[in-house]
């Protein structure tokens, strides 16, 4: 399963956002709302919603040990790692600031 995420990161030309969460712990409407919106924030963004406990080993590779966490990859490289709870505006600003919402 994690191989599919890895494959997407390597093959997708634009930005890949991997939103790691543990639904039992973070199933609140805001988190879900943000996760649902991520793909609409940029023109070339591919979004993966993943349950952390199913991808624990894969996440560890990127120094992620908990949830929620948003990883942003571009051209196969990790460009941003946002750990913990982020509000809608905060996360949007972060991605924008890092220039990750612009197409390549």
């Amino acid at each position, binding site marked *: 399963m994690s191989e599919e995420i890895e494959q997407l990161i390597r093959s997708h030309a634009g930005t890949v956002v991997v939103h790691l969460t*543990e*639904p*039992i*712990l*973070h*199933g609140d409407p805001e988190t879900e709302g943000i996760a649902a919106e991520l793909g609409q924030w940029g023109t070339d963004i591919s979004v993966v919603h993943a349950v952390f*406990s199913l991808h624990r080993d894969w996440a560890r590779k990127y*120094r*992620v*040990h*908990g*949830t*929620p*966490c948003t990883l942003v990859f571009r051209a196969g490289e990790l460009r941003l*790692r*946002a*750990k*913990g*709870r982020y509000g809608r505006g905060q996360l949007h600003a*972060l991605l924008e600031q890092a220039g990750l919402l612009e197409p390549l």
Partner: protein
Amino acid sequence: MADRPEPTELSSGPTHHLVPSFSDLVVLVPTREDLLLLIERIPPWVSEWVGKTPREIEGQPISAIAGEIAEALAAVGEDVLADGRPIEDYCVEFTDTTGRDRAVMIAAHRVENYRLAPASRARERANESGPAVLLHLQDVSQSVHLRRRAAGVGSFHGLIGRSQAMLEVFYKIEVYGPTDAPVVVSGETGTGKELVARALHERSPRRDRPFVAVNCTALSEDLFESELFGHERGAFTGAVRSHKGRFERANTGTLFLDEIGDMPQRTQAKLLRVLEQGIFERVGGEREEHVNVRILAATNLSLEQAVAVHRFRSDLYHRLSVLRIHVPPLREREGDLPVLVEHFLEILNERYGRKGVRLTPDALRLLSEYHWPGNVRELRNVLERVYVETPGQAIGRNAFTEWVRERDYLTAGGWNLERLETQRAAAPAIITPARPDQEYRISGPGAGGQDFPQPLTRYPGSDPRSFPLALPHGALGPEGRRTMDAAYSVERPLPQKPKPLCEETIRRAFAEAHGNATQAARSLGVHKATLYRHMKALGLQREDLAGAPAAPTPTSGVTDAESSETNDHEPKP
């Protein structure tokens, strides 16, 4: 988790940061070469997780310590130190050195000009003043464990569901159950509020004591107090003996007050006293009774609104609403429908002695598109209905045709049985339970409208007056389809519109029934309400008809031709 002591100032001077010392605080500082993060301080309960004491690990590089939590703290520390972005509500689950599952909630932020404590073991390798990462840790092992346990169980004290919304409910039951605090369970009708209350009782130390339920809408205001608090002999007319109320019966256990929003105001004051002091008096009694009862209440109304319009006492509201659980409606329980369907079908299989009955994916899709105003109760009843009506093992979409028609009709506004009956007859039904006294022509699939002259079969032991439930075995179409998916159509005669009643007919019916309206209506083959409607239209009073002889036939003044025709068939008095 250990108690938090008061913060203490560890450094002073204009460039030094004020660092509070909390027992949940881990401080990481970089080495002089900025290569590693050292543990400057760690509370004992955190160091225990890696099997060490603070003394053993303070001053050591965090990366040198084995264990998942050390690895997670190191990663968080490095991120925060590198980009300065604080982290909030980051939950890390791990196994400690004793093999126990743990969970910790982390909040971390970077501070500048952090000054090492005078006795800090990090002094050897770190600058005396510089940046640091402060990590506040909160042990959430217990709540995460409860959530995981609830999630692992699809059925929780009779409550079925795996949706996030229901997991929240299960979690709250786990947390609130063992307390003695009152809980208000809110939710729409049919969501299972009483099941939640029972689950709370089961999770409490009172589980072996009585659970007594009272429906506040089911009792009249006069009876309410007596039912709740009991009464003494002679307290009122009919009180021939003393009576224990529900409070006394629930003593040492739990009292569940369903639909508490409908509780009479007078009783609310007494209830408040019991809640506050555990004291009440029986109706007509002079002695104070002491009880130890945990109160659980349920409502499908907004108690806040009831308070606003003075229907519910605000002091009682505040006393009751210590803890709240909202049971979500079925339409908001994403993914729960298939689980519930499976559960109810299992129950029905057991009840009716059948095996392996299931819903087709198409049927399931149909159900999932509905908004379920009656919630789980409605789902259960609908399933039982189609289960009974469907003889085969697979219940298809078409089995729900009649229900869909009825619910659409209901949604469109008004519940008018006469109109519904007409609509039922007019629309092509896939299959309709037949009335035994009516003739049906059933056309089967693939045979160009093959007729089935045999009577519809009944399940063994069923009441012969009841509706037939199954198609006869030998009467199936060539494809042998027996499920409701088979394209059977049933034609039935349109219901006859009842002829209007004339004054004379009504008078005669009353005379024959000796003035009894119910009997008169029955003899006329109409509902009592219909009879009254006709009477009103004709300007007839019941008092005039009670015991009155029937009017003479041709001179009654009735000019309606239809009425005369009707009278021709009736015996003369």
